């Protein structure tokens, strides 16, 4: 089902088009991901797994995992959570590994156009709050920037954040994430920043400092003088029996489905995790008219802001702390989840099981830095649980242990969007300065950013983060 009306969002949809799923005619909106169109038509099982023949639906919704591979127009292994719907598309459940023999062999044209290597002062990888802020301040200093984002619009996670932001005016407090994305995009100096959309950095090649990029089905190369990695984070997963049933999604994936594509994830939801993401997404599910049966949290305390918790409690959603998932059940997709209580040593207590009849379970058990490019570049990393996992060592100016490679935002340690923006500004300023660019205000702006970060992190909710960061800088 598509969401018809929403208190915050207005969905811009393409025209209604016909397509086929396993021979059945269906309707969807042109340009929406195939998985979203199928979901809106009630199709959750997209493929059978390769060895165990298990039903699978999408999980990450952003093209990371392999849960949603389908046959599209004869081609196997298409990630339908990101592949866009076109009129007349023939989509089929993929059995096993997919049959390539029916796919049309495309003659290789020489119009690939990827032969040259583009040069740029600074490549900013990721157009979320950190990357955008980095590009804006690097431009201010006078540096030219190439900003790469794998999505079709910039903003990163901001484009699904319907809630107002915390922080102070400087970090756009009380403005909704979706609106901040537009504000930042407006602030970009269009002359000084080359924005590449639908552009995924596939690799950092150490031997010649080149970034390999796929941009709109073309492979191109960029050789920047400096790189700011602002790739964000990815959602962690949980291991419990039947954790791969269709209907079990990352909380961010459910958020993408409903806030970006305007599709209802299901009827009754169990949210796993009472951090900010779990709490916020629960609230947003309710805003989209979906019932949240409960929020469970393995820790003995709510990890997210209490105001978010109070918001969902006022809607009648219970929060069970010290509870975890025992197992999920369902034939083709999720029908029931059994939860149970944990004791002080995180051991489950027999006899505390509760069965919940839900068709959706959202996993919001934390994020980890999406640091693949940093590993490839040889940046020194350290495992810091408070920051989400392996995190790059860096100096006060956000430079990693590899000269010329800077970081900002969640990839530099999972935190709030407000500090991501300030980190981005700082990285942008310092990367530009290291190339000799300075509009005369570098010193002042740098100091300002460092102070802002200190302020944002000075409270009790940032205690773990502070401890973590001490090990990095």
């Amino acid at each position: 089902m598509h969401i018809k009306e929403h208190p915050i969002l207005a969905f811009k949809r393409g025209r209604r088009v016909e397509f086929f799923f396993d021979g059945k005619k269906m309707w969807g909106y042109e340009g929406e991901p195939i998985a979203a169109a199928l979901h809106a038509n009630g199709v959750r099982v997209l493929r059978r797994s390769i060895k165990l023949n298990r039903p699978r639906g999408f999980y990450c919704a952003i093209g990371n995992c392999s849960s949603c591979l389908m046959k599209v127009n004869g081609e196997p292994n298409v990630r339908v959570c990101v592949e866009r719907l076109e009129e007349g598309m023939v989509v089929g459940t993929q059995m096993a590994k997919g049959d390539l023999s029916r796919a049309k062999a495309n003659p290789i044209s020489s119009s690939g156009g990827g032969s040259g290597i583009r040069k740029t002062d600074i490549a900013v990888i990721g157009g979320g709050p950190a990357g955008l802020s980095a590009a804006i301040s690097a431009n201010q200093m006078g540096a030219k920037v190439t900003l790469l984002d794998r999505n079709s619009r910039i903003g990163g996670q901001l484009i699904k954040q319907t809630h107002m932001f915390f922080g102070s005016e400087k970090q756009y407090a009380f403005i909704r994430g979706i609106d901040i994305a537009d504000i930042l995009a407006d602030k970009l100096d269009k002359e000084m920043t080359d924005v590449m959309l639908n552009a995924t950095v596939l690799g950092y090649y150490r031997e010649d400092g080149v970034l390999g990029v796929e941009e709109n089905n073309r492979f191109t190369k960029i050789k920047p003088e400096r790189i700011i990695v602002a790739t964000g984070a990815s959602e962690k997963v949980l291991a419990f029996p039947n954790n791969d049933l269709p209907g079990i999604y990352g909380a961010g994936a459910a958020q993408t489905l409903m806030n970006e594509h305007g599709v209802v994830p299901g009827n009754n939801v169990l949210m796993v995790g009472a951090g900010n993401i779990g709490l916020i997404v629960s609230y947003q599910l309710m805003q989209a008219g979906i019932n949240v049966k409960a929020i469970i949290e393995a820790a003995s305390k709510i990890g997210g802001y209490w105001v978010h918790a109070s918001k969902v409690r006022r809607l009648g959603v219970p929060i069970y702390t010290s509870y975890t998932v025992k197992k999920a059940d369902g034939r083709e997709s999720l029908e029931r989840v059994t939860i149970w209580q944990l004791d002080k040593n995180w051991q489950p207590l027999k006899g505390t099981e509760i069965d919940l009849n839900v068709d959706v379970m959202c996993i919001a058990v934390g994020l980890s830095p999406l640091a693949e490019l940093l590993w490839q570049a040889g940046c020194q990393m350290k495992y810091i649980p408070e920051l989400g996992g392996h995190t790059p060592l860096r100096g006060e100016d956000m430079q990693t242990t590899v000269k010329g490679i800077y970081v900002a935002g969640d990839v530099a340690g999972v935190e709030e969007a407000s500090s991501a923006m300030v980190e981005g500004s700082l990285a942008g300023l310092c990367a530009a300065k290291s190339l000799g660019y300075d509009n005369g205000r570098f010193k002042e702006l740098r100091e300002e950013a460092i102070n802002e970060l200190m302020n944002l992190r000075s409270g009790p909710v940032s205690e773990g983060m502070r401890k973590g960061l001490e090990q990095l800088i």
Partner: protein
Amino acid sequence: MIEKTGVPTPQDLWKVFPPKERLEKGPVAIIECFQRIPCDPCYTACKKEAIQEFEDINDLPQIDFEICNGCGLCISRCPGLCIFIVDQTYSETGVLIKLPFEFLPLPEKGEEVDALNRKGEVVGKTKVVKVQNGRYEDKTPVISILVPKELSMEVRNIRLRKNND
């Protein structure tokens, strides 16, 4: 307990409630913010400077109940949606509560809705007196409802009845 349940305890609430005498004087803002988080828009929202400037952005908001006139401009500016206006002087029969409500459909003026407490439990019914949903509210509409006095410090949300059946 709020850290386990998401629901403030009476002890928590006593700390932020205005004194009885102030409540009896007229509308006043109650900021149900109990955790030090980096956030300060309530201060910038208040035109009367009743909400004091933050020395440290993580501080809890401090409100001068004598300066606050219960205008309610802060309600839709609070990212935590935790500010409410209570006017115990509104009428003989009931107390006026202004609260943020970001759901569709919006209630209409005069509509009878369920009154919910901080756990989302129905504690009574109430009538919608006013719906503010202009540019200033920016998609965080402010709903004014009328509740009996004994529920004025308990009701913090509403639920539309037509959605309920």
